[in-house]
């Protein structure tokens, strides 16, 4: 889990060794039994119980999860809608129990999605509540975020899509406010933004993008070295509709970085991003970067070599490429 210190391992005592041995024996016996039943193609309640006990001990046995799904589908009760609802609800309860052992088991999440997909009457709001709780415990658990996107998609089957999107968007704002380094939150936001932009007119579009800009700037000023806001800038650039908009965004980015550099002239990331911004500007609109600005970039790359010697190779590369493209002297040489 993020942010929690690992407890150092220590040598097991004799008792603990004994217990571990017995646990292992129990596990192996159970495992063999389940595998035998599977080989015999037994699709009974007994077999179902056996898989349950085995999966409680180890959630990573994807064969056994598969087997369990097959058994469920072959049971007589499956045919009846009400009984299926009950069976799958019980599956969800079982999964809730098992999730406490291992929040990050792919197979367990997969099984949950399977169960919810086949439930005659799925309770998506309730699922959302569950995901909320998980994200509350660990805000960067990508399983939870992925699952959240799955739930939201299905939720939109029964509820108003745009309202759900707005709610989700607000949720990412809350998460980002809580921790501006939460990559999952920024990422989810980037997935929602296109849908939101698609639904608004030009004036509102400007407003929305302005808000995004402010959010980025807020993050940059709070922690200039954190990558999330800078990545989001790049991404905002991508979803612009026209080159004109892109140029405007880049100019804005350059102005913001310049102001930041006035306060702190040796911020590594801002300096690199400044050069990248000019570089992109030059590519979009040839001739838009002035000679003074080009020289500023070359000097910046030289400064970066001193501040950040670990990446001097990269800066040398950038300097080389830019000097060729812009026809200015490469200060690295």
């Amino acid at each position, binding site marked *: 889990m993020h942010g929690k210190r690992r407890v150092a391992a220590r040598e097991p005592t004799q008792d603990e060794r004994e217990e571990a041995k017995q646990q292992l024996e129990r596990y192996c016996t159970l495992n063999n039994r389940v595998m035998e039943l599977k080989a015999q193609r037994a699709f009974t309640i007994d077999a179902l119980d056996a898989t349950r006990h085995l999966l409680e001990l180890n959630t990573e046995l994807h064969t056994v999860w598969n087997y369990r799904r097959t058994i469920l589908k072959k049971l007589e009760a499956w045919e009846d809608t009400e009984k299926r609802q009950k069976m799958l609800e019980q599956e969800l309860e079982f999964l809730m129990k098992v999730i406490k052992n291992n929040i990050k088991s792919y197979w367990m999440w997969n099984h949950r999605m399977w169960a919810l997909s086949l439930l005659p009457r799925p309770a998506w709001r309730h699922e959302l509540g569950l995901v909320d709780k998980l994200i509350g415990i660990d805000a960067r658990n990508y399983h939870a975020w992925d699952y959240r996107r799955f739930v939201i998609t299905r939720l939109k089957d029964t509820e108003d899509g745009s309202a759900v999107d707005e709610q989700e968007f607000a949720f990412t704002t809350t998460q980002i*406010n*809580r*921790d*501006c380094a939460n990559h999952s939150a920024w990422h989810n936001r980037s997935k929602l933004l296109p849908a939101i932009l698609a639904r608004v007119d030009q004036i509102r579009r400007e407003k929305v993008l302005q808000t995004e800009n402010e959010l980025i*700037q*807020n*993050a940059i*000023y*709070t*922690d*200039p070295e954190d990558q999330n806001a800078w990545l989001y800038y790049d991404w905002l650039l991508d979803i612009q509709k026209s080159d004109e908009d892109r140029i405007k965004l880049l100019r804005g980015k350059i102005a913001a970085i310049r*102001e*930041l550099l006035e*306060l*702190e002239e040796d911020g590594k990331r801002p300096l690199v991003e400044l050069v990248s911004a000019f570089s992109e500007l030059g590519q979009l609109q040839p001739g838009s970067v002035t000679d003074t600005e080009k020289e500023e970039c070359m000097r910046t790359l030289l400064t970066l070599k001193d501040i950040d010697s670990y990446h001097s190779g990269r800066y040398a590369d950038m300097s080389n490429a830019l000097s060729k493209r812009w026809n200015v002297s490469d200060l690295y040489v």
Partner: protein
Amino acid sequence: MAEQELDGQSFDLVVLGTGLEEAIIASEAAAAGKSVLHIDRNPYYGGAYASFTLTALIEWAVCHRDYRQVPVVELLVGTKTGREEESQQQLTDQPTFVIGKNSRETAASILAKQTTGSRVSEALDRLVPFATNSICIDEPDTTTKALLELLKNDRNYQIELAPKVAMCRGQMIDLLIDSGIGEYVQFRGVEHNYLVRDKGVERVPESKEDIFASTTLSLIEKRKMMRVITTVADQEQSKSVVGQAGDVQFEQLLRDRFKLDGKLLDAVLRCVARVGLNESVDAAEGCRRVQRYVASMGRYGRMAYLCGLYGGGSEIAQSFCRLCAVAGGTYVLGQDVSVEPASGSAGFTVSMGMGSIKASKVVMDSTYASNVAPVCVLSRAICILDAPALGEDTTALATYVGNSGIVSMLYVTQATMAAPKEKSILYAWVEGQLSENKELLCSAISATRGTASPLMTLFMETHSLEACSPMSDDIKLTNAPNAAVDLDSAVVAAHSVTKLILD
């Protein structure tokens, strides 16, 4: 021990007063195997740290307080006339009651009076002689009505004479954990630290999260604040910064190196490092204070301080007394006591109504000493508000930065069982005489209370008493509560005395 048994007994240590420092010393002496007799002339524990219900507070003001330590108490009862313009009563208005010096005999006779009325009417009776204008009890006027209304919830108040909080990582918390007291004394986090100026109240942003989410800081201010937090709060980085800066004051460092001014400067200098107006704090010490603050954050939650329930200082003092009793200490409350050097031998004779006791060493709250004079002075205000001004069910620290001074404030509510549900209490204090600082205290309260109105405000001036002439090595005086916001200095002082006693 029954009364008669004490007469003629000898004790290694006699402690007079059950304030915080005395209680800690008594419990540590008892734990070290000394025989301890702990006496308090008051019928309650806590001494200068005691906490009271409303009626008990009135009783304290009229009957129990030491007039050398607290010469004057002024009580202003707010009156709501229901009409907006009129209910804007100024805190600087003439106090409703001025409780000046009352001789001990008169106080004793007030206490001795048998009353058949309720606690509430008893309290009112006690106040009436001190009214500044005529207050009629038979036909209650607006003031009396307001007071009676307030006193209805008397038991839901726990008002502290010397409110303080505990730094999450500090000597008090560590002592509470070591002594086992931490397992039953309850605390709530001090959830907010506010900077108060005449223009308004603003939360001090203490973490990256606070800074990011703040809507009142400009981008540049956010950057500056982050730099302070990451550099000053880090021991390594701050060492090099301080080294580069040379011999400068902390304020200078913040201005020059971090370009702080205005509210950011106040936030770091006054609210976090708690540097007083005329206090000289060098760069290294300032950084240390910030580090202590940041180190406290995260131990029990996001806050840097904890506030005790039911009146922290008093609860803690009582707990140490309990600990002392468990280790064999003997307790006597409500007995007047005097100390004389023993005739013909080392040690002291401690005289009470119930007899004389021999003591090898004595520790006393300075109000039990005869030859003392007032030194440092603190002006305090306790303001009961008719609404939760800074939030329901929460606790907050606040610092008022005004033109003429800086006032420390503590805001409490039902969260720490200090006030009834829809009310709150604002404590304010500043070093200096009341006559010079009353307006400052009032400005501080006005700037903080927002739309909440004061129902009752109590002003007092507390004096620290110091010995006029050198005393024997075997007598130690403890300190009255100082102006610090936290309890750590009391622990340090107590421990230095314990060390001397146990040598």
